[in-house]
């Protein structure tokens, strides 16, 4: 556990010294603050607009920060061979992967909390009445990052270049938001006599279902969020991310340097 913590700490240190980290962070703050300008377009729903743009920006920039950290640090370390000086010490390969992953999640959580604080501050200035589902929405943005970071590490270990890793992770992120459409596609295809249900089902279950975690859509509307639903959403995220990370460990254990 100490070694996982040491690798996580080192990941955080490296990440906060990376220029891209600040670029993404500053850009996110600019977008969040500029949501005030957009809110002027609809004065009766001012806070709603700030909330939607703000949470959207937090999600996108948390995703970007996680993907660059996962691909840049893991793939970068493999490509420049600096990983070999870690692995020649008494460190198990699973400790390396979980350490890197924990570090990326720590920095993502810090990012999300900081951006959310900025957004909350803006909302309070505009007289927003606090809705606890805001906190849930932020927590679920983090859960999405938990999943996509695990996938980004896995893809980095399989692919050969940063560009292909980033593209593949981005592709998964987009697909993960439209997996529900696969059910509709299956229905349409069946009506036309095309039977690829098993194939579509396999894709549906393999891909991450990010739409399932979109709690931010609930804020400001009366529909409640059941406790059991939240429980299953959290369980789904943790199981999916753990499975992806252990798969990364498996791939990494077979790698030669």
């Amino acid at each position, binding site marked *: 556990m100490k070694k996982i913590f040491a690798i996580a700490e080192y990941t955080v240190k490296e990440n906060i010294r990376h220029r891209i980290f600040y670029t993404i962070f500053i850009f996110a703050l600019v977008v969040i603050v500029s949501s005030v300008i957009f809110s002027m377009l609809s004065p009766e729903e001012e806070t709603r607009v700030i909330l939607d743009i703000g949470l959207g920006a937090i999600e996108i920039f948390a995703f970007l920060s996680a993907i660059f950290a996962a691909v840049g640090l893991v793939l970068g370390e493999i490509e420049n061979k600096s990983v070999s000086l870690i692995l020649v010490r008494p*460190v198990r390969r699973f400790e390396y992967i979980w350490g890197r992953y924990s570090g990326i999640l720590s920095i993502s959580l810090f990012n999300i909390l900081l951006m959310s604080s900025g957004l909350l501050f803006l909302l309070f200035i505009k007289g927003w009445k606090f809705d606890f589902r805001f906190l849930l929405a932020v927590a679920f943005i983090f859960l999405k990052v938990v999943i996509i970071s695990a996938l980004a590490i896995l893809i980095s270990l399989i692919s050969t270049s940063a560009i292909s890793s980033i593209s593949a992770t981005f592709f998964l992120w987009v697909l993960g938001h439209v997996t529900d459409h696969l059910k509709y596609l299956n229905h349409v295809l069946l009506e036309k006599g095309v039977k690829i249900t098993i194939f579509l089902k396999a894709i549906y279950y393999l891909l991450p279902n990010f739409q399932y975690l979109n709690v931010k859509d609930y804020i400001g509307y009366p529909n409640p969020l059941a406790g059991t639903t939240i429980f299953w959403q959290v369980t789904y995220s943790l199981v999916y991310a753990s499975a992806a990370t252990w798969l990364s460990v498996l791939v990494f254990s077979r790698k*030669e340097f």
Partner: protein
Amino acid sequence: MVAIRTENLTKIYIRKHLFTSKKTNALESLNLEIEDRKVFGLLGLNGSGKTTLLKLLVGLLFPTGGFAYIFGQRVPHLSLLSRIGYLPEFPCFLMYLTASEILHFYGKLCGFSMKERQKRVEETLDLVDIRENRNDRLADFSKGMLERIGLAQVLLHDPELLLLDEPTSGLDPLGVKKMRQTILRLREEGKTILLSSHLVTEVERVCDRVGILHKGELKRVVEMKGLEGRLEDLFTDTVSGNV
């Protein structure tokens, strides 16, 4: 006592392309014994299998066949790694950390307590003469300074066995001399050293025994004490097939 022993150690690299694959025999049935508290030099041309052997010993590569043992334990073994110091030919670090931070990080991975780590990092920085630059980022270091950090990470945990891959590669004459002195001092301290090089003069100055590797095969092992003739001639004759 035997520090390193290999039994028919073999490594074949398989490079897969779209429809084809290419096999390269990097190491073929290597049988070698290296005594402890001695300096053993692996001499060979580029691509002779020197780096492959070192990487197999530290578990960065997996053997295709055969076995390797270090201090009687079969490689790879996690507990062995705290007794080994490995210097790659081109040591690479993550450049956003400072000299002191990277050594502290490696110290943590070796399981040192904070107090012990503090002490060892300070000692090692002194040893490689880099104390003044301890808080500089590695990105600002020259090649020679990075080599010194490379040596520092080898010495940090005071290993019994040192595996040095081309330790003088890329160093200036002063750096080469210092590295030679360090190797000789470590030998005096009773460390076992396995170093690889293609520079005959460097090998003959510091080694007790030399193994000549050629195309993945150990052609011969030479005892430096009492060697008649020049090692360079023996080496060139061996790799050109005259012996």
